């Protein structure tokens, strides 16, 4: 990925940087330490993520064709569609990993279309990848710490000099990592190199790492793919549990059972276009969806 080639155009940043969030939260609650999703529940009113006419073309192929979606705070939404319908491309365009050819992405009302991926991540949007990317040579703990360290606002100088601030932040991060290892059940593998984990454990680790910075919006790319049924149920429970604490989740999934079970709303893509949107019941009986999946 060549980040440097991205246009470095500055756009006014929505006032939701972690520092801002943290400062505001400290003001209102007097709380110290990492912020839990529950602390934010019900505090935000506007649409969390919004795309307007988002379009991405790969040479002749239009992978995403003017897609409009809205994600409201606190929702648990699924993005489905047949293979090659542009789900992952849509994710990549929203999170800055691909430059869209047209359209806009708004996060809390601020335009993030031109921000590079790492800056979007710092706004509180966490995502996972279909291929379950992890740092194989780092331990499970280090993988998790890596997920949060850039969010904590310590400078390179802090890190080289090992200031008190850094030690405090690192301690907080480790506490948070241990909490999350307990949450997904990887505590016993704490110091194992992540490369030694099984595929299912990869998925759990990736999931936990995405949760480390305590995102406001969690984007998951096939969290339940290629893992065994027990693990799928675990993943389902985790998503529901997190959603209950106020975290907004949008996920891509092929496993209809998972989708129909836990989602309040489903968005269906086919050949790059949004063809349907609505509650699971409505989607199940939607002619266009059935047609997209099974043909006419």
């Amino acid at each position: 990925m060549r980040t440097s080639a991205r246009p470095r155009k500055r756009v006014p940043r929505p006032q939701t940087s972690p520092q801002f969030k943290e400062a505001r939260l400290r003001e209102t609650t007097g709380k110290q330490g990492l912020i839990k999703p529950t602390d934010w529940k019900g505090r935000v009113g506007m649409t969390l993520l919004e795309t307007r006419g988002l379009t991405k073309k790969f040479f002749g192929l239009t992978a995403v064709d003017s897609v409009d979606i809205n994600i409201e705070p606190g929702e648990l939404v699924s993005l489905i569609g047949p293979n090659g319908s542009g789900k992952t491309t849509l994710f990549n365009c929203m999170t800055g990993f691909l430059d869209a050819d047209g359209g806009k992405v708004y996060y809390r009302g601020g335009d993030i279309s031109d921000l590079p991926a790492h800056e979007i991540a710092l706004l509180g949007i966490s995502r996972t990848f279909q291929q379950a990317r992890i740092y194989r040579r780092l331990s499970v703990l280090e993988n998790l710490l890596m997920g949060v360290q850039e969010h904590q606002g310590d400078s390179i100088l802090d890190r080289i000099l090992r200031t008190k601030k850094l030690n405090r932040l690192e301690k907080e991060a480790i506490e948070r990592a241990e909490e999350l290892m307990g949450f997904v059940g990887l505590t016993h593998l704490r110091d194992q190199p992540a490369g030694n984990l099984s595929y299912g454990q990869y998925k759990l680790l990736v999931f936990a790492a995405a949760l480390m910075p305590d995102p406001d919006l969690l984007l998951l790319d096939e969290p339940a793919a290629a893992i065994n049924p027990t693990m799928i149920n675990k993943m389902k429970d985790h998503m529901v549990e997190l959603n209950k604490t106020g975290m907004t989740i949008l996920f891509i999934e092929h496993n209809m059972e998972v989708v129909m079970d836990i989602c309040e709303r489903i968005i269906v893509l086919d050949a790059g276009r949004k063809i349907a949107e609505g509650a699971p019941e409505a989607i199940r009986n939607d002619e266009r969806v059935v047609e997209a999946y099974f043909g006419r």
Partner: protein
Amino acid sequence: MSKEKSPYVYAALSLALLIALIALPLVLKSGYLVHILIATGMYTALALSYDLIVGHVGLLSLAHPAFFGVGAYAAAIAATRLGTPFLAAFVFGGIVAAGLALLVSFPFFRLAGASFAIGTLGFALIMQLVANNSIPLTGGPLCLMGVPRPRLTIPPLLDWQVSSTTEYYYLMLALLLVVVALCSRLTTSRVGRAFISIREEETLAMASGVNPLKYKTFAFVIGALIAGSVGAYYAHYSTVVCPSDLSNYMTTVLVIILFLGGVGRMRGVILGSIIFTFVPEFLRIAATWRMVIYGVLLLVTIVRMPEGLDGMLTKTLRRFPFSGTSARGPENDQR
């Protein structure tokens, strides 16, 4: 980090090592051997700085001799033409190299993988041509001569005229200690973790908010800063700077040190530097067989220890307190 090693054991070992290093030239008594030690020290510092870029961030840069040479020339020019005192010339050398690295990093980091290696190689070659041909500035192939011997003056505390080889050795040792401290701070901190995240999975690193360009540039510039400082030291040590000092032979040696010592592990890199600069010099005793033995040594290492010397050491010395293993090593990567 399997077993917590006692900090006291660690401190005692470091202290013993330091005393041994200080005592070494007094024991050796041979000016030539001390000279080899100095060369080893310079290569250790260079290899450590090179490892920041190649081993930690994972960019195969071939521009290191250029930064070394630019530092050497900058310090030499400052010292001969402007009469700058040693410390200022030394700092100047490092800063010029770092500044140049910052400048060229903009086009270089638009390249990836092999293109990056070729681009930096081109840069190194161009810098050597510049040294060869800008005669008014560098003296060209006739070399830049007469760099004064360093005189270290910090007014109330210190006034040290460095002249004997042993004194140069201590100056080198001081420089090396600073470089080791800096590199270990960088690589064991969150900065090092960010470096490794970029090497391992750049896409994921970006999703965690890591700005790859920032860290790559940082590693590249710090690497050049160290290389330039070593170059400045070299200029004052040999008192002559030639265009041939910028040759790619250095890259070859550095790559050998890194890959046979253990990429991305400080201990391996230090060990590699000692073996692969000290040994070939030492072997001059057996002049005819020197390069043959060196070649065989290289072959044996690469065949028997594909993870480098450090990988092998970690395996054999696992229970030894000094071998606190980090989870980073490929020996743990059982896939």
